[in-house]
């Protein structure tokens, strides 16, 4: 199993967040100190597990309002037409993209296996889970965290 410094991991995630938001969501993700509402009762959270050259879990969470705005932008829908499924699919897809891009950056020559992204129910208390990176978006904010299995 590869050993990776936390700082290297966070840099890879940060670069992947900025690249994904710019290219596919036409949004500029700016690092922020916090994301109010992420990991709270009315938020949308997705998890992606990965294994092979490194093993662990990636989490992405955002307030539901932000998820609705992102889904509307991603799927070219009127925000009023966005339902819970649209929001969850979009957050899952974003988690998948960021996780895959970050891990591919860490070792492009390695094998990469990602589990299908899943919506995490009951996200309250999630922010205790590990080190989080927060981002300000055009219509809200989001938080991401990556944890390697020891």
């Amino acid at each position, binding site marked *: 199993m590869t050993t990776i410094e936390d700082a290297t991991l966070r840099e890879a995630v940060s670069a992947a967040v900025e690249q994904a938001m710019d290219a596919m969501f036409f949004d500029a993700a700016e690092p922020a100190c916090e994301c109010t509402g992420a990991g709270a009762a009315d938020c949308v959270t997705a998890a992606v597990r990965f294994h092979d050259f490194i093993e662990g879990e990636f989490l992405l969470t955002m307030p539901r309002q932000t998820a609705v705005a992102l889904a509307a932008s*991603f*799927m070219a829908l009127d925000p009023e037409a966005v339902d819970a499924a649209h929001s969850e699919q979009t957050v899952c897809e974003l988690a998948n993209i960021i996780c895959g891009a970050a891990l591919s950056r860490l070792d492009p020559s390695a094998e990469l296996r990602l589990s299908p992204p899943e919506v995490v129910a009951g996200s309250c208390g999630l922010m205790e889970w590990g080190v989080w990176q927060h981002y300000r978006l055009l219509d809200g904010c989001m938080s991401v965290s990556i944890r390697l299995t020891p």
Partner: protein
Amino acid sequence: MAYRVLVVDDSPAMRGFIRRVIALSGFDAAECLEAGDGAEALERLRTETVDVILTDINMPRMDGEELMKRLAADERLRSIPTLVVSTDSTKLRIGRMSELGAQGYLSKPFSPEMLRGKLERVLGVSS
């Protein structure tokens, strides 16, 4: 010439996004058909004719690798150019999909311009 495109991805959000960026990019698409996995793609290809296939890799029921193998084994379908669209941009995966017959590989995240460029390259057309 306007092209018929088949988008194969288990995420409805991603399929919607690809349809949108194909239109945004200015690529000349006559129609975008959709399938949720490899099995559904093969089912659609029994009755539909397409000019190019865009496929994800990780999908339930039948993944992108199996779809590529089935396409290669089918005399009628093997000549359809295939572009793989995936979050996995590792060299091993890109090499494996190329060996299975993929003409192009596009790693997520990608911009509309990148998608158009790859589509035109696998179709052998210049903008």
